[in-house]
């Protein structure tokens, strides 16, 4: 049974007692020499002027603190302010010239991997624009090289490295799932297809691995939307179909780059004009901002469109028409990586207003929204950290509760999973949906004709 915390319950203070097997075994293997060598190697060989400026500029003014929902969820504990997290991690390593204890490293892993969503909201509140998420990612990079990354997310990265998808989906399972969804979606349109490897299609549609693994119905829904919109699209049968990238969040930049390269090379081999990706925020960050840049592509080498942008185009161009608006009251969660990261929040609102009768804003919203609490790979650190994550998500829970909405729309997979946890843990009466769920529910199931 799910445990339930009330709104006023104080946060627990036992977060430091979490045992993560990946971290514990990694720490046990470390020697003082290894620790200082790795830390100093990363700090001196993998950083430059940017890092130096950040370290020298931060004057501990604390203006970043109110941006952080984890700080707010923990009774404004200064240790959980963004600047506080930097002080306890990277600054300690600098001050001690890499000669830090295993206990400190254990705290460092907890802070960098589970108490910071690398959501970048604090950068907006810093008077100097210091990118604290970058600093935390650097800490994670050190953890990666010391092999003390939390177990669950490391397993996910291992999957990425071996299969080019995050959930150990085997190559045949992927194709079989697409063919199965294609068959099922013929319930909606008898001649519907999910064209595999269609050379020269206009669009390659890419998803994250949880879709074929657990949420294949989302592929079904997308196939229906694509078919109804009369689009020339395809999905690849080969590795490169998964746009997600947890390696980006563990500081395993090499694997992160290989994942991004596989994604774009897959699209290029199919000669598509653009990639449309499903509703996932971190994956967007990976292929738009991070993984591509490690490969040397300053911008995506193939046009890349997040689902919000795509749906907006379909609905405003009339390719998808709404039969009847959605009746329940809805609120919208702005995913960090496509709101702060890409500015899609207003388009998301326009979509919601087209689809739904009653839309209630949550506060704060748009680029000021609180992270779902799952982002930045935090939820991927797995069950050992779920309890502390729920404590750290108290502010988010209160924000959701204040809306009084029946339905929470979250156009991001990670957000979806994190918000599900919050809703269940705190006993909120909210359904959580993707934009695609609602489009599928309210759309006219007819095929778009250009002349109409």
């Amino acid at each position, binding site marked *: 049974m799910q445990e339930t915390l009330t709104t006023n319950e104080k946060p627990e203070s036992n977060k430091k007692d979490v045992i993560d097997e990946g971290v514990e075994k990694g720490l046990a293997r470390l020697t003082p020499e290894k620790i200082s060598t790795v830390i100093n190697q990363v700090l001196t060989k*993998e950083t430059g002027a940017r890092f130096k400026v950040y370290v020298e500029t931060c004057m501990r003014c604390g203006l970043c603190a109110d941006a952080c929902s984890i700080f707010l969820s923990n009774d404004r504990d200064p240790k959980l302010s963004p600047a506080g997290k930097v002080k306890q991690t990277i600054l300690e390593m600098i001050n001690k010239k890499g000669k830090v204890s295993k206990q400190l490293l254990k705290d460092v892993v907890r802070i960098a991997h589970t108490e910071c969503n690398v959501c970048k909201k604090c950068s907006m509140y810093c008077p100097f624009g210091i990118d604290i998420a970058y600093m935390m990612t650097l800490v994670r990079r050190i953890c990666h*090289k010391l092999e003390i990354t939390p177990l*669950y997310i490391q397993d996910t990265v291992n999957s990425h490295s071996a299969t080019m998808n995050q959930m150990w989906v085997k190559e045949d399972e992927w194709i079989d799932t697409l063919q199965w969804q294609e068959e099922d979606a013929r319930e909606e349109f008898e001649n519907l297809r999910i064209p595999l490897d269609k050379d020269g299609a206009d669009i390659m549609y890419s998803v994250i691995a949880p879709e074929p693994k657990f949420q294949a119905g989302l592929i079904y829904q997308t196939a229906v939307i694509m078919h109804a919109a009369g689009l020339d699209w395809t999905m690849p049968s080969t590795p490169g179909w998964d746009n997600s990238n947890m390696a980006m969040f563990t500081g395993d930049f090499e694997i992160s780059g290989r994942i991004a390269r596989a994604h774009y090379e897959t699209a290029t081999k199919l000669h598509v004009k653009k990639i449309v990706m499903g509703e996932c925020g971190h994956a967007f960050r990976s292929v738009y901002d991070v993984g591509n840049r490690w490969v040397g592509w300053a911008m995506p080498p193939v046009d890349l469109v997040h689902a919000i942008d795509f749906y907006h185009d379909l609905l405003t161009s009339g390719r998808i028409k709404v039969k009847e608006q959605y009746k329940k009251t809805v609120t919208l969660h702005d995913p960090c990586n496509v709101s702060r990261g890409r500015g899609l929040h207003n388009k998301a609102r326009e979509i919601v207003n087209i689809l739904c009768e009653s839309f209630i804003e949550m506060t704060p919203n748009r680029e000021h929204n609180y992270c779902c609490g799952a982002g930045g790979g935090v939820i991927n650190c797995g069950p050992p950290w779920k309890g502390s994550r729920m404590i750290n998500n108290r502010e988010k829970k209160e924000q959701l509760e204040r809306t009084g909405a029946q339905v929470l729309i979250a156009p991001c997979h990670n957000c979806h999973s994190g918000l599900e946890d919050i809703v269940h843990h705190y006993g909120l009466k909210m359904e959580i949906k993707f934009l695609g769920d609602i489009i599928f529910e309210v759309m006219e199931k007819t095929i778009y004709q250009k002349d109409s």
Partner: protein
Amino acid sequence: MINKKPWDWDSEKKEIPVKEWQERFNWVEELSVSPDGEKIASIVNLDEAQFSACVNGEIWEETFEKAWGLRFLSNGNLTALVCKDEEWTVCVNGSFWETRFDYIWDFQFSPDGSFMGAAVQKDGQYGMAVNDRMWDELYDNISGVVLSCQGTSAAIVQVEPLGQGDIEGFSRGIFSIAVDGIAQPEKFMNIWDLSFDSKGKQVASSIRKNRIDYSISKNSQAWEKNFQFAWKPEFINKDTSVIAPVRQGGKWFLFKDEAPFWDKSYEQFGQLAIHGDGKKIAAIVSDRYGKWTVSENDRTWALHCDSMISTLFYSDNGDSLVAVFKDQGFWDIAVNGKPWNLKADKLWNPIVSSNSEILATRMEKEGIFYLVVNGKVYQERFDMIFEPQISPDNDKILLKAMKNGIYLRQILTLDKVL
């Protein structure tokens, strides 16, 4: 390779109506055209869970519950991956392979079409099948399958079990390279980018030895030297040496047999191109962040692009080094560093004549397909163009295209196109 001499290089135009297929079948899938342009085919749906292939209007006698990946091989054989009685196999010109699988994918064939291979799964175990023969040994998982020109097959296989969340087991190395089904004893944490030598006997790959050390393996023997990362290796010098892009100190280098090969370092490397078994070596490189170019024997082109170079290859005689690249949002081709300035929305790799003097390809621009020869756009507009061909005496182009629902096979003399 393909003997094009017997093909019809004289008939100016042949037509096959295809639009009517839409009326005959519930739906028609992607069209595929034979190398000689005489046949056009598609998977078609006849009824619920009943598929076949339609070739020039005639359907195969056999029907399938599912079918995908229809393609003509270079020798003209038409192949598809098909499911019949809930078992998968390969169908060639309407006839099944005898061996059946629980699934089959990643179909590949040798340049002359005489060898066909694919990844297969049977009873939850994984391997490859080549010309209707499955590997004797199957494994827990498979990836990165490759087929050599001589029909040897190789893949990355999982040779140790891995429990859920077993990151310790993963770090010990659970993957090996299997050649013709036989797994090599060496195991690595990761293996990628398998590459056969020219005789199909040796295999090189990029590998990961532990969390941070990457390297190259040749016949499963890892280079002793470790790197920050590595991309796909290739054999050169009559298969005695292996070259690979590797990362050291944050920069990329081309190494040969564990030693620096090119002097310069680069921001990044892409695919390698080799001619004359190593006399000419070229690579897609980035020599400053966000800018891509080609380096030939460690000398970069003046031409740079801001998006990507998707393909790099030498013509058969080595005179032309061809790059397909994207700059400022449009695709283009450069030959020996000189761009064609096509500004294409979609662009395919060109085919090159035996004397390297003619390059022909197809592009899409604002929804219209065009034939392009030596950078000149043939002005007739099409709804679709398939891969063109150049005649053996290098004076004609075989154009294969769709227009208003009719498939057109046209022979164009070079003077008409140029």
